[in-house]
C-alpha cells in the first residue's frame, strides 16, 4: 500500500516537472554555435553531405568508438550469460523447434539476399543518404532473424563471424590511428582524398569506417540473436 502510494507520488511529481518543461518549451530560433560551425564548415572540411554522419564518425568519432565498445561488451556479456546456462536447467520438454510453414521458408530464401544487399547499400552510402553503419548492421541482423524464424535449425559459422567481427573492430581502430599519424588527429578522415563532393567514393575515410562499423554491428547482432535462439 505504502509502496503504491510512493510510486503514485513519484509519478505525479515527474508529471508536474514534465508538464512545466513541455508548456514552457521555447523552440530555439537558430542553431547553436557548435551546430552552426558543423553545418557551415562541415561539408568543406570533411566532404560528407550527411552532417549527422560527419558528427558521428569524425567530429565525435571517439564517442562512436566507445559506443562500438559498449555493443561489443554487451554481446560478450550475453554470450557469457547464456553459455553459462547452456549446460544446466534445460528441461527435456524443450523439443526440437518446429519448422515454419513452407510459405515463410520460401519467402525467406528469396528475401534474405535482398535484405543483406539492402543493409550493405545502407552502410556504404552512409555519408550521402540517411543511414550508416549501425542502421545497415541492424538491417543485416534482421535478415538473419528472418532466417532463424524460417529455418529454426539453421546455424551460423561462429569462426567466420568472430573473425569478421574482430577484423572489422581492429580495422576501425587502425583507421583511427592512421588519421592520427597522417592527418589532424585520431579518427580524422582526411588522410584519404576527399574526392568529388556527393559521389560514392568521397569524404575520405568515412565510407571505410562506416563499412567496418556495419560489418561489426551486423555480425555482432547476428551472433547475439543466435545465442538467444539456442
Amino acid at each position: 500500500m505504502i509502496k503504491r502510494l510512493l510510486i503514485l507520488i513519484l509519478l505525479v511529481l515527474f508529471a508536474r516537472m514534465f508538464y512545466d518543461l513541455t508548456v514552457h518549451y521555447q523552440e530555439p530560433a537558430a542553431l547553436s554555435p557548435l551546430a552552426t560551425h558543423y553545418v557551415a564548415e562541415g561539408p568543406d572540411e570533411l566532404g560528407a553531405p550527411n552532417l549527422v554522419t560527419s558528427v558521428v564518425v569524425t567530429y565525435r568519432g571517439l564517442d562512436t568508438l566507445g559506443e562500438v565498445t559498449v555493443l561489443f561488451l554487451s554481446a560478450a556479456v550475453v554470450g557469457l550469460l547464456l553459455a553459462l546456462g547452456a549446460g544446466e536447467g534445460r528441461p527435456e520438454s524443450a523439443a526440437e523447434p518446429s519448422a515454419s510453414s513452407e510459405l515463410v521458408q520460401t519467402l525467406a530464401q528469396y528475401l534474405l539476399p535482398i535484405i543483406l544487399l539492402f543493409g550493405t547499400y545502407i552502410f556504404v552510402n552512409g555519408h550521402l543518404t540517411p543511414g550508416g553503419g549501425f542502421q545497415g548492421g541492424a538491417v543485416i541482423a534482421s535478415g538473419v532473424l528472418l532466417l532463424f524464424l524460417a529455418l529454426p535449425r539453421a546455424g551460423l559459422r561462429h569462426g567466420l563471424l568472430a573473425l569478421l567481427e574482430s577484423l572489422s573492430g581492429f580495422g576501425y581502430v587502425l583507421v583511427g590511428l592512421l588519421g592520427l599519424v597522417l592527418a589532424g588527429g585520431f579518427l580524422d578522415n582526411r588522410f584519404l582524398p576527399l574526392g568529388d563532393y556527393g559521389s560514392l567514393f568521397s569524404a575520405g575515410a568515412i565510407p571505410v569506417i562506416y563499412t567496418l562499423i556495419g560489418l561489426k554491428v551486423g555480425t555482432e547482432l547476428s551472433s547475439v540473436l543466435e545465442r538467444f535462439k539456442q
Partner: protein
Amino acid sequence: MDIPISTLTLGTGLALLLIGIWGMLTRKNIIRMIIGFSLMDTGIHIVMVSIGYLSGGTAPIINGAVERATALTHVVDPIPSALVLTAIVIGLGITAVMLAFAVRIHASKGSLSIKDCTESKW
C-alpha cells in the same frame, strides 16, 4: 491555437517516459519491466530529437535539396540526432543484456516473476 510540432513531440516523449517508469515500478513480470525500460528509452530519444528541431527544418544533408547558402536556416541541429543514434545502440545493448539475465532467471527459477527472486532483496 497553434502548437509547434516540437512541443507536441516533446510532450509525447515525456509521456512515454512516464509510462515506462510506471511500467518498471509496478509490473512484476521481468519481461514487462524490460518493456517498460524500452518505452522509457524511446521516450528519451524522442525528447532529444525534438530538442534539436527548428521550425521548418529538414534533415541535415547538404545536397541538391538543401542549398549550401541557405543551409543554416533550413536544417535541424545534427548533434542531437547523432547523440540519439548513439543512445539507440546503447539502449539495444542494455536490453540484450537484460533479456539474457531474464533467460538465466527463468532457467534457474522456472518463473519470470520478480517476487521469486528474494535472495538479493534487502
